[in-house]
């Protein structure tokens, strides 16, 4: 299971980690770290940047664990921290400059982008490739909306933009994904039974 929102961490473990017990913190890290990194890589693409954001997110988790009230699962709480960190990066002047610098080439297909997961089923690699062809902002929007279940209003707030920005980014992302995934569908449709 790789989605943060579905990972359950026991209250007892959280309490021990909050008390500074290293073994409990290590257990939480092992339980929740992979999902945090997967989400971070989905949102920012580049592995090196994702590692930095992952480190930052996990450090924030242990620093702020005392503030966690348990009203929502720990994964949801942490997801918010990770998403905020990633979107701050995507909105940063540094990232925009990097995109401009790399605009001459197909930066989205850089080897550091693929694959985010281990792609254990046949269709997975096609999905990974199609996602990698999206712009980082479009990828973040489609992922937050379709997979993480964010609403357009929430996405707009996170990006500091309007709802129509979120909707147009989603429409554009879906159109590109449709293109990227279509050949696979065509092959399936033409396969004799």
């Amino acid at each position, binding site marked *: 299971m790789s989605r943060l929102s579905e990972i359950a961490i026991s209250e007892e473990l959280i309490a021990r980690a909050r008390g500074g017990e290293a073994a409990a913190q290590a257990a939480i890290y092992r339980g929740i770290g992979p999902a945090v990194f997967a989400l971070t890589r989905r949102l920012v693409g580049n592995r090196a940047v994702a590692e930095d954001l992952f480190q930052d997110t996990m*450090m924030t988790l242990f620093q702020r664990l005392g503030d966690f009230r348990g009203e929502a699962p720990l994964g949801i709480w942490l997801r918010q921290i990770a998403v905020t960190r990633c979107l701050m990066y995507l909105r940063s002047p540094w990232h925009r400059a990097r995109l401009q610098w790399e605009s001459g080439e197909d930066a989205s297909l850089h080897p550091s982008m693929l694959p985010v997961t*281990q792609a254990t089923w046949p269709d997975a690699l096609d999905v990974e490739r199609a996602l990698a062809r999206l712009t980082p902002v479009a990828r973040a929007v489609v992922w937050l909306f379709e997979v993480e279940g964010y609403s357009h209003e929430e996405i707009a707030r996170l990006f500091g933009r309007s709802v129509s920005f979120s909707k147009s980014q989603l429409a554009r992302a879906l159109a590109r994904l449709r293109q990227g995934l*279509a050949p696979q569908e065509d092959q399936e449709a*033409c396969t004799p039974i």
Partner: protein
Amino acid sequence: MHTDIDESNIARRLRAAADEPSEAPYGWAEFQRRRNRSMLTRVIERNRPAAIAAAVVAAVLVTMTPFLHGGHEHEPAIAPPDTAGPAKSSDLQEQARTRAIEGWLAALPQDHDLVRVGARAAVSRLQDQIAALDDLMSAERVAGAQPSRLDALERQRSQLVSSLAQVQYAEMLASANP
């Protein structure tokens, strides 16, 4: 035949991709190592203004010391003489400053109440480097080295002495305010 893919189909495939197994980029030990390094960096950043302020105070004291003590070069001072590195002055002035710093270092108490291993190691390393440089300079003089070569070595020695004074001064402050 072209089959159009609807949004629900894409969403389903994206969610399936999300459920693929993934791994953290590194283990708990590496995470802790990076966390400690990051925290150390933050502490240094946080204390940087205090270090700059101490350096400014030291520079002011160095400037004022000759007036306060009648110009006695080797009298122990509160702060080391100007350790900001070789300024754009003549070599003679630079050598005089280096001697003043060495006088200040010699007057320092040898035993601090509080000894920090890192600082002590840095002091030892710098002292070794200065000693090695002294040996080299002696050998170069005997071999009749070019004056420019000796000047370069002298400047290098001045920098090492300045560094040593900075470390010793920081250690002295730390010892006075544990």
